[in-house]
Each structure stands twice: as structure tokens, then as C-alpha cells.
């Protein structure tokens, strides 16, 4: 068994992507009006609603089993 640490990549190999968040929004808005369609969910009153968790689907038992193991 080796305990040698895994070398981390040198930063220059993984440059940060030049795309800024504003660019991303412009691109998304250009895509066939899809963003307006998705924004319809914002009309729903969700105050105090816990976001969906797949473990809430009954009789899903995967999370419980994983916890036990």
C-alpha cells in the first residue's frame, strides 16, 4: 500500500474558463426563449417548502440502507 500523496495538477493546466456569469446568461437567453419558459416556476409560492429529495420517494430505501451499512 502506497501512502505517497497523489500529485495535484499544476494550476496552469487547468485555466479558469474565460466565460463569465453574465456571458452565460446572455447565451441562455438566446436559446429559443427557453429561459423565459423555465422562469415560470418562480410564480409558485414555495415559502417554507423543503426542496425535493429523492430519499423522500416512498418506498425508496437506498439512503436508509446506505446509512445502516
Amino acid at each position, binding site marked *: 500500500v502506497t501512502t505517497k500523496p497523489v500529485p495535484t495538477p499544476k494550476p496552469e493546466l487547468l485555466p479558469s*474558463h474565460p466565460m463569465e456569469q453574465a456571458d452565460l446568461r446572455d447565451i*441562455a437567453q438566446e436559446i*429559443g426563449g427557453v429561459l423565459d419558459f423555465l422562469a415560470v416556476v418562480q410564480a409558485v409560492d414555495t415559502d417554507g417548502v423543503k426542496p425535493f429529495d429523492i430519499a423522500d420517494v416512498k418506498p425508496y430505501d437506498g439512503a436508509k440502507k446506505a446509512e445502516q451499512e
Partner: protein
Amino acid sequence: MAALTDLSVRELRDGLKAREFSAVEVAQAFIDRMDATRGLNAYITETPERALADAARSDALLAKGEGRALEGVPLAVKDNYCTAGVRTTAASRILENFIPPYESTVSQKMWDAGAVLLGKTNMDEFAMGSSTASSFFGPTFNPLKAKGDDRNRAPGGSSGGSAAAVAARSAPAALGSDTGGSVRQPASFCGVVGLKPTYGRCSRYGIIAYASSLDQAGPIARTVEDAAILLTAMAGGDGRDSTSLDAPVPGFAAAVGRSVKGLRIGVPKEYRMEGLRADVLRAWDDGIARLKDAGCEIVEVSLPLSKYALPAYYIIAMAEASSNLARYDGVRFGLRVEGKSLAEMYENTRSAGFGAEVKRRILLGTYTLSAGYYDAYYKKAQQVRALIKQDFDRVFESVDAILHPTSPIPAFALGDESFENDPVAMYLIDIFTITVNLAGLPAISVPSAVLSDEGLPLGLQLVGKPMGEETLVGLGGMVG
């Protein structure tokens, strides 16, 4: 005797067991039919040599009286199931030459039951679509045409190749996958049966991921009984998929023909929306009348949040897709297009490897997950999903199943610009199917006895409680 390609899965299974015909004869009949219907483009990869070799092994076992549940029965498999040694593309250029070194759990279960692989069927790229037109390998054509209209029709999607192959008799049954209706909607368009099981009923291991909290394997067949036979072979817990359910798997086909007297069937009032086609309403009313005749009680129910289901579904599906598809980077497998730097290689590979709809969904999914927009889109969509699930929980306290159309329209003509140039119009086709995936419920699409005004099939959908597939199989046999 009927042609071998006209026999159902049950008839093939029973005939093979009784040695009325051989598995090699059956495989050859379907290979000939695949040849005759190749113009439909239902298959991306055909495996005739393997089919004949598998069939010969089945004949040897049958001769010894050792046939298994699907011994010698041919099967088509959607091309997003990893099949060891057989090319698996997800209909994308980025996986055009990908040969998996491992087998998906569900397809392995089919081979363990004795089924024979005919080939891998066409689909929308990475299962993102409702027409099978986004395939890198070209569109699949629906074998059915409208009265007096020679235009090719879409088979639906994303499991359009599987549904078209079953409808065209080039496979007696097929495996599909259903993220937002991808088994049920093509079944509706092609006049066959599609069953989407409860989330977790079947393992997702080895099925190329699109949206992991929504994806589920499902069978497509010509009869409800055949779909039930396949589901029995497909279902079961799997240690390699932590979301699969370790629950008993009944013989679902035993529910076919069982009395449904006294069952309460919900009809959601919000789904009788303004502008719904008259022929679709007629098909729905015909299904209601048939269930009444069978002794069911019909009750109006309310699913008020359903109108927000489409945007919620697409936000969640696109977000999960943007994450799942990050692995296609040209490094470990799949297409690689070189560049001057690592970042340029990524960009070149993904630009060349993904089609337009996949790029659209990755971009939008990345956007909805990005800091500053996460709460407004992704978190909000997950909250709406929780409310939709609560709607169903409430309704299922008083009914055993829900009945409504599978699709608001029959198969549309390929080249119809109102769909092909407008992604939102295409997304709206999924209006009756996506809620089921959001809530993790089982559902079955069965052809209505009523055809559309153009003479095309219309599907009726029964939605059940979690693990309620047996109820759906029983009702499905009565409704169409």
C-alpha cells in the same frame, strides 16, 4: 399459423417451449424483418450474428427442457444501455465508436433470462428529445402514416427506435428508458404499450445517465401482458445502484385479466385543458367508459401544481444533464478532438461531439446551477417538485390509479417546423408524462380503441401508486 414476427412475447415463449418452432427460426424471421424495414432507421447497430448464436444456445437448452423465462425470445435494446462488446452510442457522435467493457444490470438480466439481442435501437441523443430526430444517426420514421398523407411521422422519443421496431414487427419487444415520458410517449405515437416502472424498481446501473433522479428503465411491447412479462425479468434491487429498490418482484403478468371491480380511478380536472384536441378527449372518455364497464368507480381529482411541472422538470433534467455529461471530455473514452491546450481540447471535443439540443440543455443546466441563479431556478424547481409529489400523495389517499391521455397530440409529421424549430413547443408535448417522473411513480401507456382524426394511434396513460405496477397491468388490459 401466424408469421413468427406477428407473435407476442408470450406466444413466442410458449411456442419455443413447446418446440413448435426453433429459436434460430424465430431469430432469422426477425433478422429478415429488420432487413425489410431498415428504411425506418429503427436500429443504430444490428447484431444478427450474435442473435443467431444466442438462439442456437437457447435451442440447445430448450431441447434439454432447461429453458429460462425468456429463452430464445428476441429483444431490441435502446442504445443507451451499455452492452459489453456491442457498440453503445446514446445516438451521439461523442460515443460513435464506444464499445462498453461492461453490461448494464437490466440488459444482463434479460440475457440471464434467455433473451436474444437483435440490436441497439435509435433514440434522441442522450435521450434528450421527444421525436428521435436529434439522433446523430438520423431520425427514425414511425411505421404508421396518417390517412391520405404520405409524409413520414415521428415515432416519438426518446425511445423512438424501440417503439418503431416493435410496431414494425422487427422486434417482439424492446427495452427503453423513461426520464420524462420517453417510453410512454413513443409507445403512444406508434400504437404499442410502454411501461414506466416506479423509480428504483429497475437498476439504472449501466444505462447512460441523462437525469439520474428521473431516469428509469422500461419495456415497450405490443401487449400489456408482454410488457408485464418483460418487467418481471427487468426488475429487482441492485447493489450497484443505491437508488434501486430491494423489493419483491411479483409475476406482473398474473395481474392481466384480474378483476378491477371496485377500483377507484381519478380523472384530473386540470388536464381537461382548453384547446385539448377533440379526438384526444374522445379517446380519454372512451377509456373512462371502459373502466366504468369493468366495474371501476370514476372520481374527479385535482392536481393543481401540474401546470408548473413542465418548467420544473426541464430545470431539474437540464441541471442533472449538465453534470452527468461533464464526463465526456475526450480524455478517457469517446470522441477526442485535439487542441493547442487541454482547455481547447475539451472545447473542440464537446463542440464537435454534442448535437444542438444536448448543447442547449448543458448550457441551460449550467446556468440554472450557477451561483446567483441556483435559488431562482434549481432550488425553486426542487421545491415545486416536492409540492407536485404532495399533490399525488394526497390524490392517492382516495384513488387507486389516475387516467389521462399520454400525449396531447398524435404522431406529428417529420419536418413540421412548428415543432422542429421551437424547443418550447417540443417540450410541451411532454405535458402529461413528466409529472410521473417528478413524483417517481409508475405509469403505463396503452393504445386507445379510438384513433385520431388522421387515423393515428392515441395513447391512454394510467398512473399508479409507488410499486403499483400490478394494478396498472390489470387496468391496462381493460382500457384500450
